[in-house]
């Protein structure tokens, strides 16, 4: 019974933890401009993140090692460093975007300019990392993030024509007035939002922190295989809401305040309250994860002590990196750069950086020297190879498409 509850809570946490500022912005934007015609990308992204998270979780449970520890061993000091720098730039941009997202969400409730909240939010993010036990932290924000389920409720209340929705989703076509490059540019953005690399750094390092062993793998798989797809459905519901409300009105989504509007229209003030709580929880939770991920990755690459499971003074350099990353992230947002724009760039660059960590994990997951009996199955490898190809194409196409479409204009 207790085990069942644990699984249940784990799945809920994974759903609530799936959505972050990138998913919110990308899905809302895409829903308003492309309707359901890009919903398939979320599906492809969810399968990808399930595959990647399962592999890295298994590697972490069997070897007790974090991602960048292995990346450096497999790629060597030079290629590993390049990899680390690229991945950390993306994670840092994401961290900044999440910090901005929390502040913007609080602005929605208070109508006080978000910039005033940024220092406070940064402090709180650091403080939670400093004081709150790992498991409580993950669970609290994951569960609060479930408030975003109100998007699904709103979508249902807005009363879509289910038949035409299914038709649109299953017969994707570029809508009138949009070019093919723009369509593919947003496909990549949506894909990058669903498959952000920090999720994997956090997930595998978290597995090491919580001391997973092979026995925990079953629970891990259930969490991933149920939680992420349901989180993906939530993403599609966000796109669905903006599709129904904004597309007919010719509205393009440029602000977080707009993302909440369909829910207000469909579910009123209570719905809006849920949305704001969900925004705060999802972005705050992701800020914690990205902040920790910078520390995890750098410490693992350099062979330092890391993690929340030891006293901070015993992992002083790790905590110093986390602190510096949060301060710099807050400073980036305080330059008054638009956090939504930072988000859009962070998800596209995520797509660019994905193969850098995916490939070494795929190789290590096949290495009996590390994995023993727990190497990839043939099915996992078949899927893994297909995604390696896909990620490579996406990574190579992202920047040219960004330039060609002037970042999706």
């Amino acid at each position, binding site marked *: 019974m207790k085990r069942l509850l644990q699984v249940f809570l784990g799945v809920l946490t994974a759903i609530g933890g799936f959505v972050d500022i990138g998913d919110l912005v990308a899905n809302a934007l895409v829903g308003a401009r492309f309707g359901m015609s890009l919903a398939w990308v979320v599906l492809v992204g969810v399968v990808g993140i399930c595959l990647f998270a399962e592999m890295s979780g298994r590697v972490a449970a069997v070897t007790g090692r974090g991602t960048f520890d292995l990346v450096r061993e497999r790629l060597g000091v030079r290629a590993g460093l390049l990899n680390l720098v690229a991945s950390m*730039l993306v994670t*840092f*941009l994401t961290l900044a975007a999440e910090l901005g997202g929390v502040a913007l969400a609080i*602005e*929605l*409730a*208070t*109508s006080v300019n978000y910039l005033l909240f940024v220092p406070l939010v940064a402090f709180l993010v650091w403080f939670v990392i400093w004081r709150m036990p790992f498991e409580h932290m993950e669970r609290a924000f994951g569960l609060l993030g479930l408030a975003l389920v109100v998007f699904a409720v709103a979508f249902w209340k807005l009363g879509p024509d289910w038949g035409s929705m299914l038709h649109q989703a299953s017969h994707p076509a570029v809508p009138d*007035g949009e070019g093919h490059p723009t369509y593919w540019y947003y496909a990549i953005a949506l894909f990058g939002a669903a498959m952000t690399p920090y999720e994997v750094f956090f997930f595998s390092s978290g597995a090491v922190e919580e001391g997973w062993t092979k026995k925990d793998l079953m629970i891990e798989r259930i969490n991933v295989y149920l939680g992420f797809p349901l989180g993906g459905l939530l993403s599609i519901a966000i796109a669905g809401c903006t599709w129904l*409300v*904004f597309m007919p*009105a*010719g*509205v*393009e989504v*440029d*602000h977080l*305040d*707009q993302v*909440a*509007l369909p829910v*207000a*229209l469909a*579910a*009123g*003030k209570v*719905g*809006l309250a849920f949305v*704001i709580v969900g925004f705060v929880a999802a972005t705050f939770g992701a800020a914690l994860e990205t902040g920790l991920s910078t520390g995890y990755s750098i410490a693992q690459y350099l062979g330092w002590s890391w993690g929340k499971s030891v006293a901070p003074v015993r992992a002083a350099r790790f905590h110093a990196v986390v602190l510096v990353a949060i301060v*710099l992230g807050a*400073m*980036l947002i305080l*330059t008054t*750069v638009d956090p939504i*724009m930072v988000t859009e*760039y962070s998800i596209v660059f995520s797509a660019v950086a994905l193969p850098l960590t995916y490939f070494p994990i795929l190789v290590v997951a096949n290495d009996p020297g590390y994995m023993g009996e727990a190497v990839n199955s043939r099915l996992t490898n078949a899927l893994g190879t297909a995604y390696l190809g896909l990620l490579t194409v996406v990574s190579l196409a992202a920047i040219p498409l*960004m*330039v060609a479409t*002037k*970042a999706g*204009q």
Partner: protein
Amino acid sequence: MRRGVALLLALLTASCVSPSRTDRDYELKAGNSAKAVASSVATALLGVEAARRHRAPGPYLSVLIASAEEDASSVQSQFDSVQPPSAHADAQRAELDDLLSQAVDGLALLRITVRRGELDQLDTKARPLRAVLVRLRTLSEEWQ
């Protein structure tokens, strides 16, 4: 690192504003500006709709409408800074600029009303904006 990111962002966005050389370029720019402001106005009007049905509180509406107004006025000032290449373009400029001013003024009025807490008056005060929205849409389609 931060400077590098800022530089990259600046490079990537620098391509947004460029001088227009021909009438066709100008017309496209005008059409896009009309479309962008129509999007802001439509957002605000949806907010007004939510207020009319008592589905959104004042602080939220104030943020929503203020950011729509900010976007609209930034589009307007960008459009105004573009050099019209001909007399024909001059006429287009006059027509659209007038409309954009009406949109920005209308949005400002809504913002003031929300911040005074007079949510029940929003619907009435939004009336002129509806007409502006229709004309903006017409122009944006005409100048595609």
